[in-house]
């Protein structure tokens, strides 16, 4: 674990951020946390010889911001009925989710070494029956948003104030189920719901716009009754502001413009790194680039 210097407002760099930090410190601390998550992802995939490294690295800053600065969750009470819900719909990016959850304290970081090993709780796709902090078993694309809509309806019905966040791939949005759910959330004005699109512009085999065009993406969400904002998907302060901005009675879609493979130069924005596995030398190089 990192032995970095303590943050200005106290604690260790892996503590969730206090509400009172200023933008500069938030950026600094979330940046350090994201680096730890990225290092963990590279190590896990390098060890397992399997995984989806490109999408893990593009979604890392979103997950770091959510778990360390936004979500009201308690690793000691992962099923607290009033917790905020985070659903990773692009479930193939389990290595980033597991790393984030364990660094946040949901389970020991030592368990990450079992990623995809026989009988491990840490399957290639997340399993809520085995891993604390996982809200939904995802993997087939297009499941997370409908579940998120149900969760937001449940909050409303219970008069509770928990919020629901769903992290989606951009290629994933080609699944029609997302748009059925989007219509439902818009119709019901589910303003406790936030959809975050990891807009890295790549899917499994090609660019999204060369496969099945998504743009103009923000307009699509608006047409379905959502507020939509775009931001830099690697700027933690911008993500924080987008996730926590006051609501106007509509669900919110945050289009997080990102780079697939962010943080490792030879992986960034290359389609073949959807699920390519780095060689041991490449793991070394990647970890050097992801210096603390």
């Amino acid at each position: 674990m990192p032995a970095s210097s303590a943050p200005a407002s106290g604690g260790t760099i892996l503590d969730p951020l206090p509400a009172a930090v200023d933008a500069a410190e938030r950026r600094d601390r979330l940046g350090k946390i994201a680096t730890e998550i990225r290092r963990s992802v590279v190590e896990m995939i390098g060890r397992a010889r399997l995984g989806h490294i490109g999408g893990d690295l593009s979604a890392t800053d979103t997950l770091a911001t959510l778990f360390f600065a936004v979500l009201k969750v308690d690793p000691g009470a992962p099923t607290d009925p009033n917790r905020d819900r985070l659903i990773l719909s692009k479930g193939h990016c389990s290595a980033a989710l597991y790393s984030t959850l364990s660094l946040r304290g949901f389970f020991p970081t030592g368990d990450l070494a079992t990623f995809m090993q026989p009988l491990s709780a840490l399957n290639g796709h997340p399993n809520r029956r085995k891993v604390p902090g996982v809200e939904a078993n995802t993997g087939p694309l297009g499941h997370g948003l409908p579940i998120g809509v149900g969760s937001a309806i449940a909050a409303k019905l219970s008069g509770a104030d928990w919020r629901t966040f769903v992290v989606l791939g951009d290629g994933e949005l080609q699944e029609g189920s997302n748009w059925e759910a989007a219509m439902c959330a818009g119709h019901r004005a589910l303003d406790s719901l936030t959809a975050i699109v990891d807009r890295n512009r790549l899917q499994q085999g090609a660019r999204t716009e060369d496969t099945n065009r998504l743009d103009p993406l923000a307009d699509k969400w608006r047409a379905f009754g959502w507020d939509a904002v775009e931001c830099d998907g690697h700027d933690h302060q911008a993500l924080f502001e987008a996730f926590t901005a006051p609501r106007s009675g509509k669900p919110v879609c945050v289009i997080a413009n990102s780079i697939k493979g962010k943080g490792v130069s030879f992986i960034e924005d290359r389609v073949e790194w959807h699920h390519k596995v780095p060689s041991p030398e490449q793991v070394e190089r990647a970890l050097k680039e992801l210096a603390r």
Partner: protein
Amino acid sequence: MTAPATAKIETFDCRQAFAETLVEIAQSDPRIVAVCNDSVGSSNLSAFQKLFPERLVNVGIAEQDMVGVSAGLANGGFIPFVCGAAPFLTGRALEQIKVDAAYNALPIVLCGMSPGMAYGELGPTHHSIEDLSWLRAIDGLAIVVPADPAQTRAAVRWAAGSGVPSYLRIGRTKAPSVTADDSNAFAFGQANVLRQGSALTIVATGILVSRALEAAEVLAGRGIEARVLNISTIKPLDEAAIVAAARETGAIVTAEEAMTEGGLGAAVAAVVVRHAPAPMRILGVKGFAPTGSATFLLDHFGLNRDGIVAAALELKGS
């Protein structure tokens, strides 16, 4: 079948034979189109895409659309080969398969790639262990599970000319060839008797066929001569071969890389109870798998030589 113990037996991923044959038939038949869901790589369609870019319809990550679009293509005179990972093709688009393909009786070839537990560590979401059960319930849909490359090539040719909706389960987990003579590797609707025997019959499909042959070898060493049937057409089932096996050998073990509820074993049992009741053991997948590689999981569920031998010995009471 009796390679020296030291020789390494060659094993095959059937996707290559599938993709090569598809390109071959597309060269002579302009009606052949491939439809996929961001799966050009995983369905080995790169060569097809290079040769016939306009005949490859990649609809993106959208399986329901993929099957519906294929129905429209078939209605327009084309023969669509719909290529996607088996769990998403059959699971997500099940109603399109039922209605758009089967109820409309259109010649759509649904190609379920990497079925069973081929995706290993990616887990139950990516395992296609229910496909045989839920597709068997669909009227008029032919279900074909080739066991090796020779069967795959023949099945692709059959499907292209069949004029009926079909499902081809294209294996990815490597397995040895079970075909001795390529010229009669596969005949639609017919079981292949790969080994004669009268003590019991092992009825297997897909990658379990080579494992059934290994089990028969072990059983023979213990004086038990097992017949081995390769069922590459799950639907319609070769009832005559099943009834003969039940009558002549008196006991049946089935083996498949699929849930035991509703797959090959269930299909065989329905024939056996009706025409020639005989004791059976149905080997298959027993639920959502834990984490592990494809081979680890096959062993985990006893879908290997030793598991088949144990079931056979139990049936024979020895």
